[in-house]
């Protein structure tokens, strides 16, 4: 073995190769690494005659097998909408694991139980009715036999309710993620749990390694193990690219096929391709979607309104049928291609301000019976999936048939809510891909026609004035 320091050609020491002057500084490390390299090479040679070419062939073979598996077991079922039952078994095992794990944790932390289930907010409230609370406040005074009563202490009730609503009102509550009653083993969803027992980790490892089919599951498995043992702050870079690979190439496939559809000019084909591509995207997210009440599915020339929890909603709804969407602003080659093939409704940024123009455009689209139903999210923003925000009425004024659709995500498997102030789009997608799974239920509702209630303000006032004035309010007049 040559221990001469003329080892500047080694790749570990580029400084030595480039800067002759600085070679002096690195001489010792260079010598050491040179020694190590030659020793290692000798060792490998004696061990198993593993040469570089054989290794390359092995890798290629493994890659081919993996590709065939992916295509046959993931893409083809995804495209045609049937399932091989692998994800279902994965789900059942996952649910059982989570339940067992929660029981384990509960035994361990018996005292500091999940009090989050008791109070869902910052303050403790008493939810008695107005009559009950005012009675309580007035209890020290004798009740008059006839007629109502007024005490100065009545203001306490209203003041307390007012301050409660300033501290925490229903609307603000809907924009934070839902607290889970039983933890779903993702450290990100439980603030208190930072370390979990080693036994649990090993048990998880044992349960999940059989699911080596489906590269998505492998990635989620590995990243979720990392989550359980460490606090999940940074994504594991080496595993995420394979997820993005599937998601990214689905998108490219979609656009390429759309360009093809332009030449054919056949809408049914473009619909088919659309649904197929969305299905692949959904499989990339490991989503299981259950559709209920399919007879109420939105038809052509109607408007579909749905609640909005995350940008993934679009993928979920389009798995079942094709919808036209309302987009603002034209950006990029991709979207220009989509415009030509698919009848989405497009608006320039300036046009969005003009309500009449918007309404007219939508009406034109709707009146054309061959066009796809428009998908609109009337809440206007992402809500955390526990309740529904007040709708913006613009979409309802168009006058077409409305098909309401409800989307509910199962929180056991991962929180789908996109808190746009907390997470950017990319980190949100990363979180989606690394949660256990995405399970959601979609209900198509039939529209019930109900009268709008009168103003709520008068309700409270009426109630209180009847308490003050008493039962015989007709006798009191000025």
């Amino acid at each position, binding site marked *: 073995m040559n221990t001469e320091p003329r080892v500047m050609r080694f790749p570990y020491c580029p400084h030595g190769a480039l800067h002759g002057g600085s070679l002096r500084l690195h001489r010792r490390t260079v010598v050491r690494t040179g020694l190590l390299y030659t020793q290692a090479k000798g060792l490998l040679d004696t061990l198993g005659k593993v040469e570089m070419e054989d290794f390359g062939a092995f890798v290629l073979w493994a890659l081919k097998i993996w590709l065939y598996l992916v295509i046959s077991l993931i893409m083809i079922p995804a495209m045609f909408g049937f399932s091989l039952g692998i994800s279902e078994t994965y789900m059942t095992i996952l649910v059982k694991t989570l339940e067992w794990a929660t029981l384990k944790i509960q035994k361990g932390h018996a005292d500091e139980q999940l009090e989050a289930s008791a109070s869902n907010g910052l303050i403790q409230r008493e939810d008695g009715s107005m009559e009950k609370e005012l009675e309580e406040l007035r209890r020290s005074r004798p009740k008059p036999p006839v*007629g109502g009563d*007024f005490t*100065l202490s009545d*203001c*306490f009730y*209203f*003041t*307390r*309710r*007012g*301050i409660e*609503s*300033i*501290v925490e*009102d*229903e*609307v603000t509550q809907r924009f934070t993620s839902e607290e889970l009653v039983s933890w779903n083993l993702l450290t990100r969803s439980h603030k208190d749990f930072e370390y979990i027992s080693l036994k649990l980790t090993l048990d998880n490892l044992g349960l999940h390694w059989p699911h080596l089919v489906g590269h998505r599951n492998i990635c989620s498995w590995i990243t979720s193990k990392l989550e359980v043992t460490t606090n999940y702050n940074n994504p594991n870079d080496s595993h995420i690219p394979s997820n993005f690979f599937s998601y990214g190439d689905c998108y490219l496939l979609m656009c390429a096929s759309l360009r093809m559809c332009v030449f054919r000019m056949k809408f049914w084909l473009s619909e088919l391709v659309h649904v197929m591509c969305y299905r692949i995207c959904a499989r990339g997210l490991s989503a299981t979607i259950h559709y209920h009440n399919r007879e109420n599915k939105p038809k052509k020339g109607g408007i579909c309104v749905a609640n909005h929890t995350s940008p993934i909603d679009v993928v979920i709804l389009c798995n079942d049928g094709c919808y036209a969407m309302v987009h603002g602003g034209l950006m990029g080659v991709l979207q220009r291609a989509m415009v030509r093939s698919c009848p989405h409704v497009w608006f320039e940024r300036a046009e969005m301000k003009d309500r009449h123009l918007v309404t007219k455009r939508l009406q034109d689209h709707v009146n054309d019976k061959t066009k796809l139903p428009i998908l609109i999210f009337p809440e206007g923003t992402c809500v955390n999936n526990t309740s529904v925000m007040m709708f913006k009425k613009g979409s309802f004024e168009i006058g077409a048939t409305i098909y309401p659709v409800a989307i509910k995500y199962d929180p056991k498997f991962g929180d789908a809510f996109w808190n746009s102030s907390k997470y950017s789009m990319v980190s949100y997608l990363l979180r989606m891909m690394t949660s256990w799974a995405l399970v959601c239920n979609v209900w198509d509702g039939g529209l019930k026609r109900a009268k709008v209630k009168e103003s*709520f*303000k*008068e*309700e*409270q*006032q*009426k109630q*209180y*004035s009847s308490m*003050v*004035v008493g039962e015989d309010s007709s006798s*009191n*007049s*000025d």
Partner: protein
Amino acid sequence: MGSRASTLLREEEIEEIKKETGFSHSQITRLREDFQRIPELAINPLGDRIINAFFPEGEDQVNFRGFMRTLAHFRPIEDNEKSKNAAVSEPLNSRTNKLLFAFRLYDLDRDDKISRDELLQVLEKVDVEQKMSIRFLH
């Protein structure tokens, strides 16, 4: 009251809060309209008076400190907080201070008295269709 002016937030303190929390100036102070946007407060008959209780006299903005001062009235009373010497000023959530807060809800012109008109005004807000006659005051 003399003590009120000294507890209002000075510019330096707003700067300090800005640096610490990263909030901008507009996020540290609030206007009346912001409170009125809360739907549950809007349907409360005493909603306007509650909002006015936050704002110091004649001002249209409330800063964070003033906001906390008002909210501090609503902390539950802890019984072991009985102060031995009367020289120490009472905490904001003492019984007396709570009653003072409630008194000020009625006393609109801040003259430390509740006049008959002020009382009628409260009931006006509460009534829907017509002014009521208040039998027990006659």
